């Protein structure tokens, strides 16, 4: 009797789960295209050359519309990132005019950028950004990779998938940038572009990349896919500049604690072997 109740309930539970599945699957957004970035997994590190290429893409293309408020020029030369030399980072900084002051006469002035400066924003305020972009302000990209998700699987898949693949932010940025297509049924919308990866599919950003938009110094062919991947990796670093330190300290901590745990298990077993329990 008891067993039958349990079995019946199990079947009922499973049925509910299956019913619920299709309701979830229908969404207005495509899953990002999978890509094995070098920084995935517990041992993954950034690919320095890729970050350096991504910086070129950001600097030459994206920075005309997007800010990167949390990035300072000195970060470019810090360990765990693109690791430019300090000289190179200084040279990048000096190409930008930074407003400083007031000086001793109370006047604001501009001077070339320094390592300690933040990357300057293209627009002075949100209103200006909107006015220049058909009413949609380009968001700051410092945290975009953490602030967007790439996967839209049902609830019984996504928690497991995310454990191994992360939230898909870098994949989303990569897919978005290289995923512009012609809209279905030739539909057109004023000031908007069709992109299946964008929530709602219509995005105010015009396709920012075209083949050879930048010239890579390391000779890598600058296809749209390549640039999208590189700039996504670069933005991943900007969003998590301490990732390499985190994984390094993590490994040492886990090894130390794992050993300690093992010892404590042996201690506990030795002590408890004295009594019946």
């Amino acid at each position, binding site marked *: 009797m008891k067993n039958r109740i349990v079995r019946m309930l199990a079947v009922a539970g499973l049925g509910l789960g299956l019913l619920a599945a299709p309701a979830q699957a229908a969404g207005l957004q495509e899953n990002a295209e999978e890509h094995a970035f070098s920084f995935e997994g517990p041992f993954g590190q950034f690919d320095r050359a890729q970050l350096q290429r991504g910086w070129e893409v950001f600097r030459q293309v994206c920075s005309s519309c997007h800010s990167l408020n949390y990035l300072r020029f000195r970060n470019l030369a810090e360990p765990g990132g693109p690791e430019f030399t300090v000289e190179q980072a200084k040279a990048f900084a000096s190409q930008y005019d930074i407003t400083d002051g007031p000086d001793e006469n109370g006047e604001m002035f501009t001077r070339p950028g320094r390592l300690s400066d933040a990357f300057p924003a293209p627009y002075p305020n949100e209103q200006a950004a909107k006015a220049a972009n058909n009413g949609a302000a380009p968001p700051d990209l410092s945290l975009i990779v953490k602030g967007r998700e790439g996967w839209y699987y049902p609830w019984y898949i996504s928690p497991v998938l995310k454990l191994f693949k992360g939230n898909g932010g870098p994949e989303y940025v990569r897919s978005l940038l290289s995923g512009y297509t012609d809209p279905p049924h030739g539909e057109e919308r004023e000031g908007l572009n069709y992109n299946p990866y964008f*929530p709602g599919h219509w995005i105010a950003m015009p396709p920012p990349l075209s083949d050879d938009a930048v010239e890579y110094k390391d000779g890598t062919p600058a296809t749209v896919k390549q640039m999208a991947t590189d700039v996504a990796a670069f933005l991943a670093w900007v969003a998590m500049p301490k990732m390499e330190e985190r994984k390094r300290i993590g490994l040492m901590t886990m090894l130390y604690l794992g050993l300690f745990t093992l010892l404590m298990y042996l201690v506990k077993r030795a002590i408890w072997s004295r009594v019946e329990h």
Partner: protein
Amino acid sequence: MSSHASYEFSNPVVRWIDSRLPVFSLMKAQAMDFPTPRNLNYWWTFGGIAATMLVIQLITGIVLVMHFTPHVDLAFDSVEKIMRDVNYGWLLRWLHANGAAFFFLAVYIHIFRGLYYGSYKAPREILWMIGVIILIAMMATAFMGYVLPWGQMSYWAAVVITNLFSAIPVVGETIVQWLWGGFSVDNPTLQRFFSLHYLLPFVLAALVFLHIWALHVPGNNNPDGIDVKSEQDTLPFHPYYTMKDLFAILVFLLVYLAFVFYSPWYMGHAINFVKANPLVTPAHIVPEWYFLPQYAMLRAVPDKLGGVIVMFASLIILFFLPWLDRSKVRSLRYRPVTRIFFWLFAITCVVLGIAGAQPAEGVWLLVARIATIYYFAYFLVILPLLGKLEKPKPMPASITEAVMQKH
């Protein structure tokens, strides 16, 4: 805790202090010699694990405050500054954010342990009720902490939760404005949440002290739910349970730190990396996982005030549990029928958690409603009835006998 200097300590300084303020005697009696049932299983380690998490939250929290700025224009930036420019700031922040989640995990397991083994029954009713107050205080703490980084979900969670109070008839609006410190969730709200988020963990620490005090009067319950009858039934807390707890704490920390180091924002919401914007409502406003069951119950009721009442009732009902369960037998080991309903109840809580993460419509709304009904029926109907109707299995005469039967 009243035993006075009953130990003869060999160290003269210790002896001198102890005869004036018997802290050493107290520690020896309560933390070392304390007689503890010999049959406790690993479910009994989660109290110590929860206490460890509270200490971790306190330490990481106090250091975070040194770098955090509670202001609507600066809070989000100051957290990012912690992540980027403060030495090991990322570590502090991820320890604290994931620490809250693992604190809840430990406490929830601890509570279900109590439910299964009947630890809430006489003479431990007050111990149990202090535990329920701890749970509610923890929830308030975590909710206000979550608002502090001032991301999109922080802000909108504050809007949704404070607005619940507007359902109260007549005075609702006034209460909400009083909570906000104005006419919307804004800087005064953030600053008072910050103040209370700093205060409440210390209240929690005091409550934990009372909880342990109330524990040390009757002593531990145990998996067989029978009273300690002789010294044979017990072991001194140290070294038996100090070492066992320490081992369990380390295993728990390993899992917790795996998240901190390798998936630190797995449990969070991506949208909270976007600065709060009162003009843009996120597509889904979802609380952290540890509030999902309560959230599901809130939304299961078609009426706003009704939902609020049901949600708070789901916590308040726990206070009455010692008197709702009429059975004299504590442990479900000896109550085979109640055991089935207990596991159904546990599954129900998980189902509520899943439903709480889905939009409240269609099948999920139905599921949440059925689960909510079962949640309350378990306490109000099933336990009172089964306490009278169920015939418990024969119980061993003592803890020692139970232990020997196993071998």
